């Protein structure tokens, strides 16, 4: 064990943990939103993330035409390019998430199928997407061009406030605030909360259940797409199975925070990112997964519904 790294690298690790954790949080929101209304885990969300990373890569290299070794961009061109890739990734993931809902959930729900059937069909969609991308890319990892030069705002006790790290911290916080407000205050947000509390009563109140569920998948896709863009911008690579480990981490974060709870997903992701960084630094990277899941089990032993409580009603914020 190396505790000295805590004193020498505390702020650096904290910053990296925050950026990683907030990317987890965005994907985690995708899981928790769907769980809130359907009380089912959308296992295809990890592959929605994967498609988002490839969408970002595709936009940058094929639509905007930047070569892998293209020089970094500056000024308006940089902002325009990143914004375009960001929006494209979110839209691609939202559309895919809606498609997942239509294919894997809606038809089964309309026919009154067992809930497990939807779960299996979502896993089927996930495998379909994963294997399709494996075939398309012949399993090769792909790198994205470094369009954003990784300049630094400055350092604080060894922590390097790099532009990409700061983007991965600020963007998710802004997205979470907007989402939190949307679910808490808007008419559509209230519909989502109503459906999460009681589908039957929502129907009686005239809420279009299908519309709300589609909207929920769409929102989950948007947050997951944002995470995919940030991941690709920070780590500059992707591979057909990138969604697997991200999906496990984000689902863990959702459970840690309390699945079905927006704030739980957000802070669960944050806690997981910090935990991974500090566990890797203190115990060695090989102990990262062991530490994370040990902490998860311990937390669930004392708080079975997660840190913020599971209850679907918690979606009320």
């Amino acid at each position: 064990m190396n505790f000295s790294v805590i004193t020498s690298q505390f702020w650096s690790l904290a910053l990296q943990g925050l950026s990683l954790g907030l990317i987890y949080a965005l994907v985690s929101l995708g899981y928790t939103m769907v769980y809130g209304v359907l009380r089912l885990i959308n296992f295809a969300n990890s592959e929605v993330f994967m498609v988002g990373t490839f969408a970002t890569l595709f936009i940058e290299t094929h639509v905007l035409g930047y070569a892998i070794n293209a020089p970094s961009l500056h000024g308006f061109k940089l902002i325009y390019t990143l914004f375009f890739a960001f929006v494209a990734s979110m839209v691609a993931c939202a559309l895919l998430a809606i498609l997942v809902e239509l294919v894997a959930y809606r038809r089964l729900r309309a026919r009154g199928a067992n809930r497990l059937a939807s779960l299996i069909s979502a896993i089927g969609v996930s495998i379909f997407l994963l294997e399709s991308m494996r075939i398309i890319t012949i399993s090769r990892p792909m790198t994205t061009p470094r369009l954003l030069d990784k300049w630094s705002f400055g350092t604080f006790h060894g922590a390097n406030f790099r532009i990409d790290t700061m983007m991965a911290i600020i963007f998710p916080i802004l997205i979470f605030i907007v989402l939190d407000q949307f679910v808490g205050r808007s008419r559509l947000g209230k519909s989502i909360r109503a459906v999460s509390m009681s589908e039957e009563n929502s129907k009686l109140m005239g809420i279009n259940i299908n519309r709300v569920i589609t909207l929920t998948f769409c929102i989950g896709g948007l947050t997951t797409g944002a995470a995919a863009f940030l991941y690709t911008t920070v780590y500059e690579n992707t591979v057909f199975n990138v969604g697997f480990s991200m999906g496990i981490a984000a689902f863990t974060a959702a459970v840690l925070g309390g699945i079905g709870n927006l704030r739980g997903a957000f802070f669960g992701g944050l806690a997981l990112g910090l935990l991974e960084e500090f566990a890797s630094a203190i115990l060695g990277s090989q102990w990262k997964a062991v530490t994370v899941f040990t902490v998860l089990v311990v937390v669930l032993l004392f708080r079975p519904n997660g840190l913020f409580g599971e209850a679907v009603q918690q979606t009320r914020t």
Partner: protein
Amino acid sequence: MNKKIVSGLAIAAAATLALGVVATSPAQAAAKTSVSLAFEGPLTGGDAQLGQDQIPGAIWAIALYNAKNPKVKVNLVKADSQCDGTVAANVAPGVAANKDIIGVIGTSCSGEARASFPAFKAAGLTMIAPSASAVSLTDPKAPDRGFPVFHRVVAHDGFQAPALARYAAKGVTSPKFYVIDDMTTYGGPLAKGTLPTAKKLGTVVGTDSVPKGTADYTSVASKVKASGATVVIYGGYTTDAAKLFKALRDGGYTGILASGDGTNTSDFPGLAGKAAEGVRLTAADVPFDSLLTKAQLADFTKVTGIKVPGLYSTTAYNATNIFLDCITKGALTRSAIQLCVTNGSWTGAGGETIKFDRYGDIIGGAPVGGYLVKNGVIVYDSVA
């Protein structure tokens, strides 16, 4: 059990055994007009470049052989085990079940080799690996050794690891080493094997093991920077090396970056981008193009479509030629191939003598080369 059934089974078993013997008898073997060799290695997946760099050496050797119109033609069967033991454990039984295959050029990775051993040992299928270099594969005391089917035409990591440490620290005053591995059959022992030499040359300020496939290397980068290391050695494969080296450079580390032959693939500079510049790599291989005449290189390109032969084309070519020589000498069954490979002696593409010891290593080892990434291309530098 019914007596009739028992006697029927006994007759069927005897007939199968007799047919099996006939099928592999010398007389039957002599009638063969073609046999197959398999290339087993990563042809897709994250480490595909390793196999894609090697297979042209085998393709060219077989093309040259078949062009001479021999009595027995040779086909090449491609088996993609993705540098992954789990995949190899599924692929190898399929290769072993194909009775046309009498020898395996492979595997490329040590983990693949270990996972393939049960199937190939059971089938008596001889392997000659172009690049699987983990020491344990030929260690008589190791439980996962490949005896008697495994052979390799590459120096094992007992040679490469000290050379990697020496080459990484070349020209560095009082080097401070930080050694990281990917926890694989190959990467773990290679990285640990550098430690004794590193301690002689300087000080080891830290070690870490990060599982292959990790996405985020920032915490490792922080630790390396905090340690004051001046030389980082990574035991692992290209994809993860690219991620790690990028994280280290982005994290402000400015010292030497070095890795072994698992990273020495032609796609590494593209994956690592600017972080690849100046990276020091080793490999127990002599660049194939340096051994060929212009006419030979032109023919190699014509046959394989590859302009510049990649790493371990030479060893793949050597491994294939050993099988082809045995076939020329009339070894057309698996058992005959094993006998031939175990007892024969050959001259490699570089003029070196290749003869295997009892456990499958080249007697006398082989030199380890040092390579540098310059302007986005891996170039041979010197003996490491």
